[in-house]
């Protein structure tokens, strides 16, 4: 039995989500997993304050180390993200990001579907530069500690995966709710509505990790290859692309998550995704 690229990707996404959030038994008690897996970062966005989380969030870790009194930048997390990005590019987003799977499931809710307004996709680079890199390193308190600004003011994954389960199980935390939680809840609400209307709204507009992996799409070994001699310019790949790009015009686009839907849609198999120049198309797998 042949398994389509889409189903294979979904199986990998679910497996990655399950591995990243395997301590589901911690949710009713609102306890965090405290074992040695937390030394390692998740390849995708997954809040480490989620009771089920096994791994550390790379963006949270990057800010935590960068904002500490001892360090101003995290070589450990930067090296980890760089290595993954060089090998896989944004395929990490497409295959193993837990929050990416949540967004795709939200997009399945019936509603009018929209394409993203292209200039909005540049917001994530501003978020990366200002909230993840500059603010934790430069805006410090009297002890020299910087705030993890992205986690604090923006991250809807933290609100959804960490905030809501912990608020439901910890009355002492609920008693502290204030304007900041309202801001984050509003951002979460916008993200959820955005994801229902537009596939992977958070990835396209806000995700600083996606911004890093996206920049590395230009050099990543796992890539999209287009055989222009075979392409008949039918635009089916562009029409089906969940990230609103044209794979023929920009196979290395920073938005491409290497999901492979374009390869399946191509009637002449001119598009392939893989590590080599010409990998097998889905019909040959």
């Amino acid at each position, binding site marked *: 039995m042949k398994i389509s690229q889409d189903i294979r990707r979904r199986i990998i996404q679910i497996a990655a989500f399950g591995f990243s959030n395997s301590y589901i038994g911690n949710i009713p008690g609102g306890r*965090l*997993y*405290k074992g*040695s897996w*937390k*030394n390692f*970062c998740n390849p995708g966005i997954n*809040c*480490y*304050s989620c009771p089920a989380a096994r791994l*550390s*969030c790379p963006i*949270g*870790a990057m800010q*935590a*180390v960068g904002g*500490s009194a*001892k*360090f101003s930048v*995290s*070589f*450990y*997390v*930067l*090296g*980890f993200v*760089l*290595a993954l990005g*060089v*090998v896989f590019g944004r395929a990490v987003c497409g295959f193993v990001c837990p929050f990416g799977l949540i967004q795709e499931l939200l997009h399945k809710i019936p509603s009018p579907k929209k394409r993203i307004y292209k200039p909005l996709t540049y917001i994530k680079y501003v978020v990366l530069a200002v909230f993840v890199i500059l603010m934790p390193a430069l805006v410090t308190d009297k002890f020299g500690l910087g*705030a*993890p600004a992205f*986690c*604090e003011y923006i*991250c809807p994954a*933290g*609100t959804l995966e*960490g*905030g809501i389960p*912990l*608020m439901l199980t910890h009355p002492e*935390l609920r008693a*502290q*709710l*204030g304007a*900041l*939680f309202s*801001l*984050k*809840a509003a951002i979460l609400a916008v993200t959820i509505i955005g994801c229902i209307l537009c596939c992977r709204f958070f990835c396209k507009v806000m995700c600083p990790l996606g911004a890093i992996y996206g920049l*590395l799409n230009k*050099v*990543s*070994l796992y*890539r999209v*290859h287009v055989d222009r001699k075979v392409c008949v310019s039918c635009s089916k790949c562009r029409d089906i692309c969940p990230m609103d790009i044209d794979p023929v015009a920009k196979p290395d686009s920073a938005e491409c998550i290497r999901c492979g839907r374009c390869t399946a849609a191509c009637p002449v198999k001119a598009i392939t995704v893989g590590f*080599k*120049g010409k990998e097998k198309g889905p019909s040959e797998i």
Partner: protein
Amino acid sequence: MSDNRELKTRIIIAIILLVISAGLMTAGVMRGEVFAVFTKAVHICLECIGLG
């Protein structure tokens, strides 16, 4: 640029970046960043959950 040449350039850049990333990770581990990550990850992150 031909496909083969483009692929070769890409592989060279990737190898250089992978060496840099290995160096960064090693440096991070050596100076104790992993402990900082672990310490943050095993406690409730008040910023992450919206309490600041």
